[in-house]
């Protein structure tokens, strides 16, 4: 097994290795902003005394370009990191190494479709419902 794992690091490639680290560090930054902004920061919302995050709260936040960038940035990084990580796991198995091209094309497709999906999900908030 150990020698196999070293071999699969070669299969995954140096760029995959590099972007896994880069996306990991960026994720921590995004997560910090995300947690703070969604659960601790006061945007002047919650006027009703209601502590739940409401549709209007999100709309208010996504009025600012900064938070649109944060949300979409976090989505992109999570997809790069998660799918790239999944690729590493798959390439620990011979049956997937043999089908490397299909795995790569498949993961790219999943990533791009999911990114578009995620971008569209926020449209109602950005346009204000």
């Amino acid at each position, binding site marked *: *097994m*150990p020698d196999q794992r070293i071999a699969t690091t070669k299969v995954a490639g140096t760029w995959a290795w590099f972007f896994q*680290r880069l996306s*990991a*560090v960026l*994720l*921590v930054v995004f*997560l910090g902003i995300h947690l703070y902004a969604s659960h601790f920061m006061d945007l002047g919302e919650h006027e009703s005394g209601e502590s*739940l*995050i*409401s*549709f*209007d709260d*999100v709309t208010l936040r996504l009025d600012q370009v900064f938070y649109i960038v944060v949300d979409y940035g976090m989505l992109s990084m*999570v*997809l790069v990191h*998660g*799918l790239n*990580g*999944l690729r590493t*796991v798959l390439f620990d198995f011979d049956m997937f190494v043999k089908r490397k091209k299909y795995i790569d094309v498949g993961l790219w497709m999943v990533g791009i479709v*999911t990114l578009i*999906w*995620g971008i569209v*999900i*926020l*449209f*109602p*908030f950005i346009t204000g*419902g």
Partner: protein
Amino acid sequence: MKIRDLKWLFGRNSEFWPTNIKTGMWAWIGHRITGLVLVVYVFMHLSFLSTASISSGDFNSLMEVTSKPLFVAMDFVLIIAVIFHAMNGFRVIMFDLGLGVRHQKLVFWIAMAIAAILIIGGLWALWDIIFVPSEGGG
């Protein structure tokens, strides 16, 4: 695949047999499992949001449901997974940069100590929602 091909995974002499697993291997297994759990979570998260972002009523009723104690308890499980994964991830990145490579076990336990503190912080933040019943019946 034949059964004996799986000896490296399940055999008594395999490096995965629980008593043969060393600290670094546990770290790797934990990192892998939490990583995969988080991937599943991301897709669940998008699915839920995609059904709820259409109208304000849908969104607010989803928030109503997901703020129930059971869901917040699951959020806590998510917190544990993210914090473990991130802290061990930093450890991996440190070694890639050549830092602490000779003290991997010590670095692991330091990372876990920091993780424990962060997790307790998370529990503290969520405690009231999970354990203190609200007037509305939670």
